């Protein structure tokens, strides 16, 4: 058996939690179980012939506060507690969970999950010996909870929302409505598997979202700004609030003036930062190994092949400190890591959970993630971004005679098999003769993932990872982030007037 803990250790103000959560016993106590009981549950899970089992214990407390009409007049907290039990036989999955950790109920869930092993199936051509992730005694962490959320009562955070509202209202008199929400959570996670690996993790998360309605000459427009980090309450600083207030009001003049451009195929410059959602949707999902294992992805069978310009490298990274997508361990107990999907233009790796990793005969990449104990883990992204190139943003824009520059997307969607994607552009500008001109809004950009990737002809040196409240909704919701430097896509379809 190996014991592994990823928790805060270097933080004087968080000493109580720091000390507790460095100890496995804290987690065993939290979930009212002993190691022999974990062994018994794993044994029961495998009693019908399964070849691997794991248990995922979770205790999450989620809090939120909402400011509306100038007052923080609603809020609350929500407690979620339970254990999910998974049994694998080959690449088949049995899953069940219990919302309490009484042994009889957990055993009942273990027996339900064990059913999968009764199915008389064993696909050909692959080795089904699952491997442990090996001895690991991680003592570092990608989450820094300098100030535990739970050390403060909710009212301590009320002035923060009021301050943010005030910053926005004083910046722009056209702001008529401000809705701001502060949400934070702390999760104790304990994982145990049939190799005897016991892994514990403490996961903080804080998010602020502000939405502003502006009114001018009877016309209304809205803007939002958000930030989210896997950190403690120290994430909230005046600097952060200033940044968000500025973001919420900046560009509103352009928003009022913006029009839909004439549509058609044209070069598209993706602004640095939030445009990374394009990578997430149009390429990242197609790199997730479950879609490839089933042959459904447009990138299936393309490992080792050149898929884009050699100057392009795309990574999925669970090791960015404090990032919304950071993972000390994924939800299968595999250590967090940085994975190159595309390196120097060549497709190097898919994103694996344990099932796909053994199917492909490669080590898991730490992408087995889940929304909560209610869900079985599947390959999911973490922080997905493209590494810097050598061009500059100005050079890229100057190189476009007629095209469009986009800096704010929402509602992206992709068809995994076909690779076709569509993104809604909330704001951007026309590019005419190498200069940004008229503001545009409310249009779509559509294209094909592999084609768009192959059509990237320039990458700037201004990578920015966007720290908004990105949530990926592939069957289950998990927190992610995305980023990109300014890039030029030679040709995409822009839907306009």
């Amino acid at each position, binding site marked *: 058996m190996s014991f592994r803990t990823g928790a805060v250790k270097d933080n004087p103000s968080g000493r109580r939690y720091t000390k507790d959560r460095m100890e496995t016993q804290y987690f065993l106590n939290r979930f009212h179980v002993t190691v022999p009981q974990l062994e018994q549950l794993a044994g029961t899970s495998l009693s019908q012939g399964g070849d691997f089992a794991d248990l995922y214990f979770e205790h999450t407390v989620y809090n939120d506060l909402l400011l509306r009409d100038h007052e923080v007049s609603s809020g609350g907290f929500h407690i979620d507690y339970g254990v999910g039990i998974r049994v694998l036989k080959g690449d088949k999955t049995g899953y069940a969970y219990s919302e309490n950790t009484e042994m009889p109920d957990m055993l009942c869930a273990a027996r339900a999950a064990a059913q999968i092993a009764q199915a008389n199936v064993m696909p050909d051509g692959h080795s089904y010996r699952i491997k442990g992730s090996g001895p690991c005694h991680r003592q570092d962490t990608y989450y820094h909870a300098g100030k535990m959320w739970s050390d403060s009562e909710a009212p301590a955070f009320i002035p923060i929302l009021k301050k943010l509202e005030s910053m926005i209202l004083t910046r722009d008199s056209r702001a008529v409505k401000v809705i701001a929400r502060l949400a934070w959570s702390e999760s104790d996670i304990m994982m145990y598997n049939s190799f005897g690996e016991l892994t514990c993790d403490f996961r903080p998360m804080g998010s602020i979202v502000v939405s502003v*309605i502006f009114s001018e000459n009877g016309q209304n427009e809205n803007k939002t700004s958000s930030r989210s980090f896997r950190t403690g309450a120290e994430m909230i600083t005046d600097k952060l609030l200033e940044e968000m207030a500025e973001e919420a009001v900046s560009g509103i003049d352009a928003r009022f003036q913006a029009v839909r451009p004439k549509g058609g195929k044209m070069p598209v410059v993706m602004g640095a930062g939030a445009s990374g959602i394009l990578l997430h949707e149009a390429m990242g999902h197609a790199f997730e190994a479950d879609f490839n294992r089933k042959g459904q992805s447009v990138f299936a069978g393309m490992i080792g092949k050149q898929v884009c310009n050699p100057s392009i490298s795309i990574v999925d990274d669970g090791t960015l400190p404090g990032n919304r997508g950071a993972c000390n361990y994924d939800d299968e107990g595999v250590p967090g890591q940085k994975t190159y999907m595309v390196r120097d233009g060549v497709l190097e790796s898919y994103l694996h959970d344990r099932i796909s990793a053994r199917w492909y005969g490669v080590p898991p990449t730490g992408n087995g993630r889940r929304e909560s104990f209610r869900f079985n883990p599947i390959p999911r992204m973490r922080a997905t971004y493209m590494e810097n190139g050598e061009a500059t943003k100005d050079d890229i824009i100057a190189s476009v005679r007629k095209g469009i520059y986009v800096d704010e997307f929402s509602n992206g969607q992709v068809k995994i098999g076909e690779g076709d994607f569509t993104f809604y552009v909330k704001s951007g500008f026309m590019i005419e003769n190498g200069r940004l001109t008229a503001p545009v809004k409310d249009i779509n950009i*559509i294209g094909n993932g592999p084609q768009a990737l192959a059509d990237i002809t320039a990458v700037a040196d201004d990578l920015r990872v966007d720290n908004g409240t990105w949530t990926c909704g592939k069957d289950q919701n998990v927190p992610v982030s995305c980023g990109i430097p300014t890039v030029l896509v030679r040709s995409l379809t822009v839907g306009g007037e």
Partner: protein
Amino acid sequence: MDKKEKINSKKEKNLTGLISEKEKSLALFCMEAARRHGACQVRVSLSKSVLDSYSMLNGELDKVAHSADRSIFLYVFADGKYGTFSTNMLEEAELDRFTAQAVASVRMLAEDRHRRLPELSRTADDAITGREPGLYDGTYEDMSSEDRLQLAENECIFKNIAADAALQDADASCDSGSLRDRQFRVISEECEYSDSVDDNFTADSNGFRGRHTETSFAICSEITIESDGKKYSGYWWDSSPFLAGLQKGKCSETALEKALSQIGPKRHSGGTLNMVVDRSVSSRLISPVISALNAASIQQESSFLKDSLGKKVFCDGFTLVDLARTPGKPGTRFFDTEGVATHDMDIIREGTVKTWFINTYMASKMGMEPTVEGVSRPVVLPYSAGICSDGSVLQGRFGAAEMISECGSGIYVTGFNGGNCNPTTGNFSYGIEGFAFRNGKITHPIREMVITGNMTELWNNLKAAGNDARPCTRWQIPSLCFADVFFSA
């Protein structure tokens, strides 16, 4: 084990998914505890559900999942302040701590004089057993894992179509021959059978007690094929509150047809065209309208229908009603999340906005009469005058095929891919997939097209609404036909 023993065994383990008297007592205990800790008003909502699913991949069992959930939501009103709380740790001692902490937390928030429970007279008094909406199928209690596996297995056609596909020849067009004549390779078939029971008991300190219970049986299938080096996928699903109402053995067939029909897409020129929207996706276009009628959006100035109540905003042919009380039909409910009794009512009648969704809080805040918190079972009523003045097409089934036949040329939309509607302005832009049609006949699949416009203008250009809404959906939105929709490609 015979059937009776099996049922008793489930009941002993409390796996039926139905709320027990003991669990109801726990909910009421929460309410009393919150009062004891200082709340002046309380609403408690206990939800319980069980879901079983059997997923097949390429004809083999791939995943079995069993989910059983219980949670209590607590809405606390104390000292003119308000908060919401939830937990799934339902031991009595834990709940007492939970409620004490909840009330203490509420007291730390700002006062909001508009927060209160609905008057008892507005709440439902006819949802006692949970069975009143007629959505509970007792057959659910008899379902065994073998039954579920069998239903999932029966849906699979992978092995048959893989064998068939190997024998197919190339050369087929959209206009002639069977779709099955096309040359293709089956990449994967994923299908799933699931069933569930959801039970809710809601009570408040004004005396409201309500229960809603429903079962659901569902099958879905997604098939991915490859033809000429390109992949195409098709998806279909069916569900019903009753096992007998579930269409079995057709999802994979339909999913395959949908995948096959997409082979050979062509670029199509854009412009202002007629648009027929298939019933399977038409709810996407009504959703922004319903959201814009929510009082919370209107009060926050983020609705493009903010001044619409009582006004004729849309064309005569657009009538949207809420048939919340249609026992036995999906979406039926006798009370909303506040416990307020639902009614069958007009939302939009012949283009005039008749209802905003105004809950107790927003009613007080806006100085208006409350209605219900949201829509239950919206139904778009049939309309054909836009394409056939004598209404003759409404004599029988009136769906996408009839609309295409009647309105000449345009684009038949069978799917949306991304896009958005700006809630403040109503401006929208959606990626679409589907088919071009000319002279009343489908000509070819299209790709990389988007529609742009404004929701108010779109619904003013409604030419027809069908009578073909899928029985399995809560939102009864039929196929729709619009004129003058701008497509770009």
